[in-house]
């Protein structure tokens, strides 16, 4: 049970906030957000200690410390522990940056917003844990349903409602497609346990559990199996906004309340990638013979990066721009996914990129939140002359922009470095994909620094200084520190990412 600590915290936090929602408003909700942040912070610290302990023990010994009834559907390996700690961190940062929002903007049931964030984070953590198709689906739904509600929290704003409805409809369709794929796989093999499925699909010997359940072996080249897997790819593609399943993303991001958008851009995306790691990279990737999903995902990866970045250049609303940027980042991470032949780099690359992505995207969005709390808008002209009104916000944006674009010495650079290292692996040799990737990094500089241009080079109509809110200010500070400190801490990060990712074959 010890290793389920992050989930327990998130669960308690969600329930606590639900109770608090009954009787608090305004300032009270803000205070709750702060408490929530401290709980998460404590949880992250404990989670990291547990992680170090789990890495020390090794995956198998860690698994043995867990009761059998949990271990059947919940993985207790370092990888899952890492992702649940990440979910806690995302939750904590989200509590911080939504503080002013729940205090001042959200009039009805402000603490419910916090509860939903906690539940969505719980969902992310559970996705990371899932070792069974059904658990995985349920957890993903927990993330998604909380997400629909979060985006519709401003009940009197038509745009927020439109965003929620769009997100819900498309989310429901994508879930249905994924479920269809899962049922195909189940129908063919008779198993939902991912470890069993790994052995049942493709070559390999049957795991002991599988023989008991009477599992059927299928070839990974069977058209029905491929159909099933591709349906799952499509479903997950919606979650991470992979082109061509990205259409919902800009609209939802633009319409949803800004703090909700900030959370949605990191939380569900992380969940989607964890699911991809579990399902595609660890389960449906037979050790011999071609990987059935690799080719389509390869092309979609190149498309995702390019479309995300090129369209982002045309955006004048910062939330929309960051939406397309987040699509592009999905593309970069997918490079590592399709480089799965690079056994010692692909998973660490994803782990590292996700850490960097959470930090820099939360940071960039917190800048947007801080300004939108004051100006009430997010179009690019609201940023004119910001460097004189609030140097803190402007320079923070520059650092986050550097990181998002992958310019050293920032966390984003490390993520990109690792991703490209995986793609250039001798066993992978995706040279053209790496070239597409770096070309995209150059394009992305244009639009990230276009915002910097408005902040620094253009004189603003309004010149009075900005007082950055407490919560957003702290969220920016924390992400800033994280973005910059990861480079000197790189050796530690690598060991950490590498050992957290050492689950192949062991789980």
């Amino acid at each position, binding site marked *: 049970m010890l290793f389920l600590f992050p989930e327990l915290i998130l669960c308690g936090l969600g329930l606590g906030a639900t109770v608090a929602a009954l009787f608090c408003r305004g300032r009270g909700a803000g205070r709750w957000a702060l408490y929530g942040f401290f709980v998460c912070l404590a949880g992250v610290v404990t989670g990291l200690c547990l992680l170090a302990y789990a890495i020390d023990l090794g995956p198998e010994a860690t698994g043995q410390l867990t009761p059998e009834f949990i271990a059947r559907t919940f993985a207790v390996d370092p990888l899952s522990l890492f992702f649940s700690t990440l979910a806690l961190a995302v939750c904590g940062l989200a509590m911080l940056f939504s503080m002013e929002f729940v205090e001042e903007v959200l009039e009805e049931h402000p603490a419910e917003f916090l509860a939903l964030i906690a539940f969505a984070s719980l969902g992310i953590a559970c996705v990371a844990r899932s070792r069974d198709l059904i658990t995985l689906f349920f957890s993903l739904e927990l993330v998604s349903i909380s997400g629909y509600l979060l985006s519709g929290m401003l009940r009197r704003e038509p745009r927020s409602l439109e965003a929620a409805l769009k997100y819900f409809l498309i989310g429901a369709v994508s879930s249905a497609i994924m479920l269809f794929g899962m049922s195909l796989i189940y129908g063919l093999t008779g198993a939902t346990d991912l470890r069993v499925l790994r052995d049942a699909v493709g070559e390999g010997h049957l795991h002991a559990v599988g023989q008991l359940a009477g599992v059927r072996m299928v070839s990974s080249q069977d058209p029905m199996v491929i159909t099933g897997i591709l349906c799952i790819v499509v479903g997950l593609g919606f979650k991470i906004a992979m082109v061509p399943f990205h259409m919902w993303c800009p609209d939802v991001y633009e319409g949803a309340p800004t703090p909700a958008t900030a959370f949605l851009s990191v939380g569900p995306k992380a969940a989607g990638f964890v699911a991809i790691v579990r399902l595609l990279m660890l389960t449906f990737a037979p050790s011999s013979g071609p990987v059935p999903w690799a080719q389509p995902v390869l092309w979609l990866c190149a498309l995702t990066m390019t479309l995300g970045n090129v369209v982002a250049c045309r955006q004048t609303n910062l939330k929309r721009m960051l939406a397309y940027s987040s699509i592009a980042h999905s593309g970069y991470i997918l490079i590592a996914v399709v480089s799965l032949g690079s056994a*010692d*780099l692909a998973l660490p690359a994803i782990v590292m990129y996700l850490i960097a992505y959470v930090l820099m995207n939360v940071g960039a969005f917190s800048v947007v939140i801080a300004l939108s709390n004051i100006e009430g808008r997010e179009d690019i002209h609201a940023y004119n002359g910001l460097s004189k009104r609030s140097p803190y916000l402007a320079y923070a944006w*520059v650092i986050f922009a*550097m990181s998002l674009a992958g*310019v*050293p*010495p920032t966390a984003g*650079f490390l993520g990109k*470095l690792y991703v*490209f*290292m995986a793609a*250039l*692996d*001798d066993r992978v040799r995706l*040279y053209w994909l*790496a*070239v597409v990737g*770096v*070309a995209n*990094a*150059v394009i992305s*500089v*244009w639009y990230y*620094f*276009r915002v910097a*241009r408005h902040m*620094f*080079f253009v004189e603003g109509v309004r010149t009075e200084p900005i007082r950055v809110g407490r919560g957003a200010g702290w969220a920016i500070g924390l992400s800033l520190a994280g973005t910059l400190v990861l*480079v000197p801490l*790189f*050796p530690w990060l*690598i*060991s950490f990412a*590498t050992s957290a990712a050492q689950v192949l074959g062991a789980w």
Partner: protein
Amino acid sequence: MAEFPILSALVFLPLIGAVVVLFIPRERADAVKSASLATVAASLGLAAMAWASMGLGTAGMQLEEKASWIPQIGISYHLGVDGISMPLVFLTPLVTLLALMYSWIVEDRVKEYFVFFLILQSAMTGVFVALDMFLFYIFWEVSLVPMYFLIGVWGHKPRCEYAAIKFFLYTLAGSVLMLLALIACWWYSGPTLGQRTFDLLELAERQPTLGMSAAGLATLPMLCFWGFFIGFAIKVPCFPFHTWLPDAHVEAPTAGSVVLAGLLLKLGGYAMIRILPTLFPTQFKEAAVTVGILALISIIYGSLVAMAQPNLKKLIAYSSIGHMGFVTLGIASGTVEGIQGAVFQMFSHGLLTSALFLLAGILYERAHTYEIDRYGGLGQIVPVYCGIFVFIAMGSLGLPSMSGFVAELWVLIGTYNAGTGVGGSTALLGTPWFAYLAVGGILLAAAYLLWTVQRVLMGDLKPDWAAMKDMTRLEVACLAPLMAGTLWLGCYPGPLLAFILPSAKAISQWVI
């Protein structure tokens, strides 16, 4: 003093200075300026000490510092200098100091301005001393961001915004190609993650290109070579990757242009010498003629375009392309003299072009225009300015007894040797015509510089400028060290050439 990490101090002192400056209140502009200048002056002193403590006649790295940093993927914190990097390491604080002295007149956003220059100095020094490619790459990229802001915020509105982002994107495009080539080299430098290395000296020993060929990737070494080359050529800039430079220079503030031309361009030339012959000896030999042709085009085309410019700053910018073409040509020759000349040319061009940009800035400060045709007869009213301008122009056009002459002479000797094979070198370029045509470039330089002197300083005085003031003491103080350096190196180039020689020999041995 042997234990003192003098190179780390050189790299990080400006950064520490920048942090200190950040804590000085915005209103106390003079304190900001003095603190920044003191930092740069201190690093100049450190650089002089480092140079003085170096042994003459050794080819290897000196003052080395090495510490394990990221052993999992073979990255270390490795610094060192040799005859090729030390002159540039010294040039960096020198030019920055003069640029900042001149910047005493800046009044807009003083603090940020000086902080950006200090960060820039840190990054450039880092590039010159880094011997680990990962470290090198970090410094290389970090140098982009401050320059972007210097051009964009303090440049000449409104085109400076366009120039700033063009500079950023163009150079970034080059460096990401370099990154990919670098990762590819890293991949083939060892069998497992921990055994691979980013260390430049190690990479040179292990020759990852052989690993690539062994893995059946016949074209990859050449692609990597061009990846590196394009990254560097954009920075130099070498034709056809030069189009960002005129924009960036014309729009940048004076001190920005000085640092850009005086130092940032040298990053490219330095990296070419340091990395291309050692990591890609075979590819270098194959590509030498192509690189030589590009260099030659840079020289002649740059000079011709310079001649056609009506804008003084643009003229100087294009003249930089021409002069840096000599650097590339010297490197392409692969001969000892060529490489020696290239380093010498970088140092000399750092002095001369800084002076030219300062002179242009001084003129702009008084007349607010760069249009050459609007000037005329200035010699009658600003004699000091006139004298210095003529002096620097003579240096730049390669007058004997000035540093430019020595540098270009050495490059030409190297190129000639590489064309004919005399002097015991391999005929890498195959024909002496490279040298013959490059001499034409010198003639062209003389033509456009003399013509500029004539149009700006001679003739009838335009009535607009009748009240123009001559140079202030501060401005003379900024230019005097540059003039002295030019003259000294021109009359007595022996010590510097001898200092560069062993390292140039070591580099040249890879390709000859």
